[in-house]
């Protein structure tokens, strides 16, 4: 009883903090960068992180198993992973752009998990026989950490694509304006171009940063994904009698793995690097969601734990 109350309290705290942080982000996005507000949103995410940690621990104690047995719990864990990446000082110090991605991602997943959409599966459910294994912790946590890192990395790539294409468009506009203005305001144009080149300089710096950090984060996520898939295969060999069953979830995890392997290979080639690899990563972004969510929503295959209760396997 006390656990469920505690769980409720923590859920509500994290959800309200998340709402506040969303508002702050919107304000800073729409109005202006108010430093104090931004700082408080940073603190808010740290508090959310501890709340989610508490939530997970309470669920663990009250249910007696690692809280990763259904979609709701895995979503909570996903937002926990995002906020973990967010507050890791290593990334915080080096990569401000990454925290711009992880913060909102944590907010959205947490908001989605705690919102009304999934209320009917908030109750911590019993663990079906096939899930009763030590592999659960390793497999699912690695998979979700991998998803979290890959999502962050591919979002950085999406940002890179957006900036690249906006730059191209603006260059186009600029050249148009250039023609018009050059007729009567020669000096002004000169100033404009120098201004633009400074802007372009920062833009290309930003693109380089995005490119580099999406590569690093995706490599990290890829490592987690590999470990997750392989530990899942070993577990499947214990529980289902075969290390690979071509189950939809497995297949999609493998597709995700291949897509990010393609990404890492495109990085090795100078001609394919940049926008091309970013496109691959953006495809990967969609595929992760299909793998993580789509397959569960369809409720097909052996991995259908999140969608409806099954009696056996």
């Amino acid at each position, binding site marked *: 009883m006390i656990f469920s109350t505690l769980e409720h309290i923590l859920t509500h705290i994290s959800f309200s903090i998340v709402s506040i942080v969303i508002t702050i982000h919107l304000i800073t996005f729409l109005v202006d960068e108010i430093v104090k507000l931004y700082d408080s949103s940073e603190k808010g995410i740290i508090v959310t992180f501890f709340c989610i940690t508490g939530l997970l621990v309470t669920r663990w104690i009250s249910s007696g198993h690692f809280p990763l047995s259904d979609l709701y719990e895995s979503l909570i864990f996903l937002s926990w992973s995002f906020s973990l990446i967010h507050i890791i000082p290593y990334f915080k110090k080096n*990569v401000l752009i990454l925290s711009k991605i992880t913060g909102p991602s944590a907010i959205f997943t947490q908001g989605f998990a705690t919102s009304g959409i999934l209320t009917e599966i908030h109750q911590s459910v019993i663990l079906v026989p096939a899930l009763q294994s030590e592999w659960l912790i390793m497999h699912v946590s690695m998979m979700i950490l991998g998803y979290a890192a890959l999502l962050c990395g591919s979002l950085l790539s999406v940002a890179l694509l957006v900036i690249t294409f906006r730059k191209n468009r603006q260059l186009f506009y600029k050249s148009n304006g250039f023609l018009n203005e050059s007729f009567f305001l020669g000096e002004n144009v000169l100033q404009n171009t120098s201004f633009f080149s400074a802007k372009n300089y920062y833009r290309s710096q930003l693109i380089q940063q995005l490119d580099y950090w999406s590569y690093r984060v995706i490599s990290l996520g890829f490592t987690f994904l590999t470990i997750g898939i392989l530990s899942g295969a070993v577990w499947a060999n214990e529980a289902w009698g075969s290390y690979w069953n071509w189950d939809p979830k497995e297949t999609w995890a493998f597709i995700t793995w291949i897509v990010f392997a393609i990404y890492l290979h495109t990085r090795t080639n100078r001609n*394919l690097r940049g926008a091309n690899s970013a496109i691959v990563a953006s495809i990967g972004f969609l595929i992760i969601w299909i793998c993580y969510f789509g*397959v569960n929503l369809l409720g097909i295959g052996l991995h259908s734990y999140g969608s409806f209760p099954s009696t056996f396997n």
Partner: protein
Amino acid sequence: METLKISTKPTMSHIQNQIHPLNLKPYPLIHNSRILGVYNNKGGRTFSFTLTCKLKVKTVKGTKTNNEKSVSGQITVPDSDSAPPIIEAEEGSIGNGEKKMEQKNSVSGSGLFKKLPRKVLGILSNLPLAIAEMFAVAGLMALGTFIDQGEAPDYYFQKFPDDHPFLGFFSWRWVLTLGFDHMFSSPVFLGTLTLLGASLMACTYTTQIPLVKVARRWSFLNSAETIRKQEYADTLPRASVKDLGVILMGDGFEVFSKGPALYAFKGLAGRFAPIGVHLSLLLVMSGGTLSATGSFRGAVTVPQGLNFVAGDVLSPSGFLSTPSDAFSTEIHVNRFSMDYYDSGEVSQFHTDLSLYDLNGKEVMRKTISVNDPLRYGGITIYQTDWSISALQVLKDGEGPFNLAMAPLQMNGGDKKLFGTFLPVEDGDSPNVKGISMLARDLQSVILYDKQGKFAGVRRPNSKLPIEIDGTKIVIVDAIGSSGLDLKTDPGVPVVYAGFGALMLTTCISYLSHTQLWALQDGTSVVVGGKTNRAKGEFPDAINRLLDQVPELVETSSPKESDSLVASKLELERTGLDV
């Protein structure tokens, strides 16, 4: 020429011996410098995660002078498998990669036989091809999850009709001709996978293995200009290259020094790991092939108390499947039981199994459950399914009778339901009436009377009689059947070895290979370096190290920081150009 030994690591000691001046032979060192130069040229700033395949092909094309055959010939390394020789790179060779390569044409007129495989290798190790193959595999797998697998042809006639083809062309003809109804064993899919495996091998052979040979060697740079051309470059005034070496060693670098020049590297494993990734993928693939061709599988549902012979259940999956002695083992199901949560849901299934050899001797006994299979002589027995085979019932004190339970079709859901029927009137009449009994699991039995009305619930073993329509019934026991899967799989050890290697090498692949060169230039030390992955953090990390280098002469003006800023600016500028 004097050699200074700084590294004290035991692993490098044999290499240290090689640095001795007496062993220093004039050696055609162009190989190394040339190849490094090419990387700088083509690979640009990043040495990437999996070492390049395309790079190789381009190298051949770009530097081809008079032959097309010396793909692997040009990167030959002396066969001495001992320590790699020390190399003095020619000045300026690293940094400007447009050096013409002299090619050694070792292929004579009979080279046609060698030519063809090399051409095939060259095509296979092409990076765009490999990427296309990976996309093809991913696409086919995605298709395999969208098309329901393993249905009868009629299903596909309905789902993909000829007159309304999906996307205008995709009808059942496509599905059945290309074997997409069993995608993951269809020739198209397996062929693509094989092609990918071939590309993997070709790339490992033509690109990655030569890289090892290159990366195992190191070279000193004797010109400050060359060092300044590195991705990272800095000048330390009033510093000693020896101090730098000591500090680098403290940070885990392998340090080599000769006269005023210093070379240090770290994380060499990170450069080799992608090869390991490829090799372990090949290991997994070969293990998978072995599994597919050499295994036996079978499933059986055995009521509690009965037995079966393993070999009767197992059927071979491929031409390599050979039965073993263990196939004659007789397996006896001693007991099947289920655990329940307080809410009544099933928590676990247990089957107590005894294994007997040909002589009837018990060789093994184990209670298996889901996630806890039994392994004996290469055979693995899994708990995968269950059912209720019979109810033992006392009717008016007579019996017990065994009533066979039949699985009932449920509309929707995957919960199981079993039912049986006990006739209470004369069995000869055309419409027999009797008592129906239903059970979801082994916990309780629901009884209905002749009219089909609910009569009561009894637990097996409770010995509590229930009177329905004048008949006293005691449910003695519910006998479960255990659903067992049996398999032998010779591929598992291979696949597991591949898994282990893959996990390890993928993790190591995250590490960066960092190389540093330094040269004592008067009182100052010129430092330059590059890394293949962690390029973002690299300047900070090196600056931190360089800050520790003590100044030789105590002076009041800290000029070092000025030069740091200057070189940082320079770095940013050059970074922009690239």
